[in-house]
């Protein structure tokens, strides 16, 4: 860690940090953690460093990555969406139900997945802004409701197996050798990144998360913005559900169990503030990759389950600690 502890180090380092923060929109610290982890895995396993393994990691990161994009938008606005994982499960079941059980055309699987996700998010947003119930409670309620509905739709609580080929392609295809989910993740992340970092919508989201009163006073329609954010978050959970469903070729009502926590963790590792006002989509992606690389490495090394849990917990704390060092400095300077 001494390499990163730079308190008192010269201006050049600080300027570099600033460059990454403001121009690349990723914290230098997160990138260093990711790089160190990759170096460690390369040393430990000869199978780690290869294009195909890198694609594996990206593929394994795709669902969590898409969820983390939603989590970043919500956390940036000082909100919270605990229903991401359950909505993922519901979307997959809804899509599979329409196309497999009801035998509707293949595109209904896509519309069903995305639509049910967006609907769940829309309901979250309406409840939060109209009833003034805290987001924590509303989305926790939706966590239960979405899971319950998924289990009811799925026959006997089991999975709906065997999707149309085109839909499966979204999970298992490899256009130009790149897995489709990875393509979807990258495109979604680029769009979301530009929206959060460069659009009015994004700037208003950050301002609202930073100081809601100030945002309202300058004329930003914070309630409408909040509703839109939760609907988008739900839509992204639906997209993650679509990817998951297509990858495993089934609508599984238990899919995405506790994924919201993993997604929020990735987001925090990537430098997004738990309390709003600061958020980075690319950072969240780096955070998700840190967890993906770690998991991939642990699998390649065939590390036993209890030790895996310890390693994941430890890396999480270290990664956020390193990020903290920077905020600490900011407060002092």
């Amino acid at each position: 860690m001494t390499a990163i502890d730079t308190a008192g180090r010269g201006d050049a380092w600080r300027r570099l940090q600033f460059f990454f923060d403001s121009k690349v929109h990723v914290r230098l610290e997160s990138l260093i953690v990711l790089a160190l982890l990759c170096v460690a895995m390369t040393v430990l396993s000869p199978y780690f460093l290869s294009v195909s393994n890198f694609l594996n990691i990206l593929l394994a990161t795709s669902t969590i990555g898409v969820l983390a994009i939603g989590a970043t938008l919500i956390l940036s606005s000082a909100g919270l969406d605990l229903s991401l994982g359950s909505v993922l499960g519901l979307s997959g079941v809804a899509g599979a139900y329409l196309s497999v059980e009801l035998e509707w055309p293949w595109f209904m699987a896509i519309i069903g997945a995305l639509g049910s996700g967006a609907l769940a998010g829309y309901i979250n947003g309406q409840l939060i802004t109209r009833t003034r119930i805290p987001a924590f409670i509303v989305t926790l309620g939706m966590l239960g409701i979405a899971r319950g509905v998924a289990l009811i739709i799925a026959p006997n609580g089991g999975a709906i197996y065997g999707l149309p080929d085109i839909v499966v392609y979204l999970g298992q295809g490899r256009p130009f050798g790149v897995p489709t989910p990875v393509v979807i993740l990258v495109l979604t992340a680029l769009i979301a990144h530009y929206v959060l970092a460069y659009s009015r919508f994004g700037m208003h989201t950050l301002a609202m998360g930073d100081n809601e009163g100030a945002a309202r006073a300058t004329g930003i329609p914070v309630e409408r913005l909040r509703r839109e954010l939760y609907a988008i978050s739900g839509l992204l959970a639906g997209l993650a559900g679509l990817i998951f469903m297509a990858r495993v070729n089934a609508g599984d009502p238990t899919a995405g169990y506790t994924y919201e926590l993993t997604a929020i963790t990735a987001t925090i590792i990537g430098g997004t503030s738990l309390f709003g006002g600061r958020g980075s989509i690319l950072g969240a992606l780096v955070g998700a990759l840190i967890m993906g690389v770690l998991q991939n490495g642990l699998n390649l090394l065939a590390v036993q389950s209890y030790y895996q849990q310890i390693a994941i917990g430890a890396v999480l704390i270290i990664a956020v600690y390193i990020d903290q060092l920077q905020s600490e400095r900011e407060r002092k300077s």
Partner: protein
Amino acid sequence: MTLLEVKAVAKHFGAVQVLNGVDLTIEAGTVTGLVGDNGAGKSTLMKTITGLYGTDGGEIRFDGKPMTGLNPGQRRALGIEMIYQDLALARQQDVAANIFLGREPVKWAFGILPGFVDKAKMDADARKMIDRLGARIPSIHRPVGMFSGGQQQTVAIARALTFNPKLVIMDEPTAALAVREVESVLKLIRQMRDEGIAVILISHRLNDVFEVTDRIVVLRQGRIEADLQTGKTQMREVVGYIVGAH
């Protein structure tokens, strides 16, 4: 020319009646001091003018138009700006983002995507505004939370002045400032008046109020207690109205 007309405005929070039928008119190109005890209702009255609070009764007209039903953004667009006592800045955003909050200039990203913020223009305009205020700020790319209280106040003032306001309400703008900064704020207020902007200054520092205003209005327990020409009154009289000794 009457710019702002407040007629019989009332407002309560729960059981607390904060404003009891306030009447107030403001002329363009004048500076009005609004004074009163803590909790007199000064900030609340101003927030009903900017649209942050609705009213329970009465009417507010600006430039002859009724303001009822307009949100803060729409009122800003008509030329009402306020520097809030409590709702200042988004601390983690930079200077330009704060100055242009809610009004970011847009362009088409890559020529195809609408709604993208023109950061270059924002930065340039923000820098111009800060320079015009003669303020010293370390870097306009820093989060404003890293600035001193006075520097933050400058950013808030810059926000109020950037969009050609007709009425600027300043709620305790000098409370956090050093002597030199106070002077420059007062100078700025005179400058605004000369440009034909109406200013409402809320301050507990009566010296500043006497120095820069044309007129002093005293608010007491949600009512207008007195409306005085600055040149024809004295500190002692104003204090008397504030504490209710008259």
